[in-house]
């Protein structure tokens, strides 16, 4: 109970508190370090990559890891390490930006629908249902036909589907807490609906939001490879983790390293995200033990 004499004058906000608690969580910190490492590599790739991502060596063909090619080469003789590094740029960007878009729209949409309730809620959630019912593949093909292929469209397409589930989760959570007395107390204090949603409701549904976010990022990364296959997003010879993994599965009996290494990169990201997510969830809940 030494927080009695910590700095009463300045005090700590919830986010500062959370950061202090997060730092004590070893697994979360390891996860954070791995993520930062991956992001740093992705940013520095053009400077540090040993080869170019499209440079082929057809004579060499697929080779297992060696001195010259640490993670081996693919069937066209392209350096696997380089391709994974370039791939991380696309995959992490898609993963984080598309998830951020989904998060922003989904949380605000869900919280607003849940809090206002009644007719507004019914209309907002029917819109979500309608979008859910749209066949995703057809939606994507339509987009590509009309707008052609671009990264921006990729974010848009992924964002357009991923926020739906988030909105439903947040709405459900908000429905359960909006009848609690502290929300009514906020109403009686004269807070506007917007202030209540942002100050009282969203902070109290952070737990499920964070958990779902950490699950969304890897699924978005894999979704990208599917979209690229349909022609939206990146095109060969550019690489992404998703396309490397799907390429690797085709040749996994002959050249397993083509599947193992990109798969490893994705799994490590996923684990780090999960540990960080769990850590954040606990850190943001003042009721979790503080010893």
């Amino acid at each position: 109970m030494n927080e009695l004499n910590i700095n009463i004058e300045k005090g700590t906000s919830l986010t500062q508190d959370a950061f202090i608690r997060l730092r004590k969580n070893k697994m979360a910190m390891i996860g954070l370090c791995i993520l930062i490492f991956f992001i740093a590599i992705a940013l520095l790739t053009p400077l540090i990559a040993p080869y170019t991502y499209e440079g082929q060596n057809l004579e060499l063909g697929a080779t297992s890891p060696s001195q010259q090619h640490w993670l081996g080469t693919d069937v066209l003789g392209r350096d696997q390490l380089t391709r994974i590094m370039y791939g991380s740029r696309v995959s992490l960007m898609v993963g984080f930006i598309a998830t951020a878009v989904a998060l922003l729209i989904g949380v605000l949409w869900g919280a607003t629908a849940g809090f206002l309730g009644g007719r507004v809620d019914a209309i907002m959630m029917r819109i979500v249902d309608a979008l859910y019912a749209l066949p995703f593949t057809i939606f994507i093909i339509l987009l590509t036909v009309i707008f052609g292929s671009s990264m921006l469209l990729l974010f848009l397409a992924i964002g357009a589907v991923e926020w739906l589930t988030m909105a439903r989760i947040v709405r459900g959570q908000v429905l359960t807490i909006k009848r609690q007395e502290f929300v009514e107390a906020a109403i009686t204090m004269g807070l506007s609906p917007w202030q209540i949603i942002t100050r009282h409701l969203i902070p109290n549904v952070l737990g499920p939001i964070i958990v779902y976010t950490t699950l969304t990022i890897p699924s978005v990364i894999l979704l990208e490879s599917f979209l690229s296959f349909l022609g939206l997003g990146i095109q060969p010879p550019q690489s992404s983790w998703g396309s490397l993994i799907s390429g690797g599965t085709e040749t996994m009996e002959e050249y397993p390293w083509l599947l193992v290494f990109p798969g490893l990169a994705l799994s490590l990201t996923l684990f780090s995200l999960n540990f960080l997510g769990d850590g954040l969830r606990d850190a943001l809940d003042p009721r979790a033990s503080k010893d």
Partner: protein
Amino acid sequence: MLSVKNLRVVFNTRNGTTVAVDDLSFELNAGEVLGIVGESGSGKSVACYSLLGLIPMPPGKIEKGSAEFLEQDLLRMNEAELRKIRGHKISMIFQDPMTSLNPYMRVVDQLMESVQEHHPVSRKEARQRAINALNEVGIRDVEVRIDDYPHQFSGGMRQRVMIAMALITEPQLLIADEPTTALDVTVQAQILTLIKNLQKTRNLAVIFITHDLGVAAQMANHILVMEKGKVVEQGTTEQIFKTPTQAYTQKLLSAVLTTAKPTASLAEITEPPFLQIKQLKTYFPQFGGAFIKRLISVVKGVDDISLTINRGEILGVVGESGSGKSTLGRSIMRLVDAQSGEILLEGKDLRTFSLHELQKSRRDFQMIFQDPYASLNPRMTVFDALAEPLLIHGLATDENVLTQVNQLMDDVGLDRRFIRKYPHEFSGGQRQRIAIARAIALKPKLIIADEPVSALDVTIRAQILALLLELTRKHRLTMLFISHDMSVVRYLCDRVVVMQNGKLVEEGATEQLFAAPKEVYTQQLLAAIPRL
């Protein structure tokens, strides 16, 4: 019959070992009623649960002691042996009859299950016993109602079913854990009489766990007072109430409110009246139907109520659950929308305000809620919770908000050092102080307090009531005080209105109403208060 010696129960948690029950000894003979009284956390329930192996182990652990029941030590029994005793020789009644009955099982099946578990009888015989048991606890039309599900019974009826279930196996010892705490006063009086009668006719031994000294006085021959896991005092009921020797017992007894309001009324009559409610109606339409919604019924929460509160007055609103007293408070706060009527605060009708006007004028009327555990945002520190209303209404700037919050903390008797703590780090009483501080932060003219002390222990309750009295004087507050507890209302309020089924039954100055209630319903309410 039951002899407990030196019982010690501990809980091993991450933060160290907590002693829940320490060195508890008592004896109980057939036909006796032992009342165990204490505040929450005193270990009174844990002690009884551990006798029957009903505490989770680990983290719980019975460190030492013995409990001889009919020449067998309960604490040395394994689970299979205990199961033969539980629900057979020793039965229990719990506080909340809704959660202790299985909502998916017919009442008759639940009763028959416990009969057949312990007696080798046919289904027909078991059903007959179930009918007899329900008859005995005073359920009407048993033949029809026996096939109902628990939710089809009212709270008091459900508790009767629980009692029938506890007694159907013909136990020798009955453990009743706060069996009437969740019930209305008039229902509580009926259930207590029922338990008392059954105890006499069957010559049962009963352990009656309660926080309510009045109930204990009415039920028990012997009383055992517990505090923080230890026995403070034990003796016959008369000894404990007439000549308590320990300071804690005296404190508990003095916290029971039997007196009238200690200070004079500060009410002043103004024109227009401070708060005037005219023909207020708050209805809740109930919709049904599979495809097309249609109106099936209307629940009349507040049904045509008119009343006036003068400036500086504390008006009590009493009634049982479902009487509409909370709906009245919430309608005035505009947390629910009234159907029709006027709510005139200093002559202005709150019902005509636009959303924006309402948000701005809300600083004039504030609310204190019942449950201090739910009414504070768990992710806001005390500082944030108290600073929020001040900053939003522009009553403080970023520079002087800390000073103002500190002042509020002083006002409600909270230590300034706790300002950066979160609600879960406080006790129930302290949390209610935070909630009160938040309500008075905006210097409101009117405070609506909805059962603000019902969730608190008796000694804490007395402190909070004293605080409310002091604050209303200091800040010249007007208060609408909603409560089901007649003694609390008598202590605090200048004037009282009695509500039943959404309607106003009786109205009058507090002492007048208590001395000479005119309406039958008011008389019933007053008669149902357990007395020391």
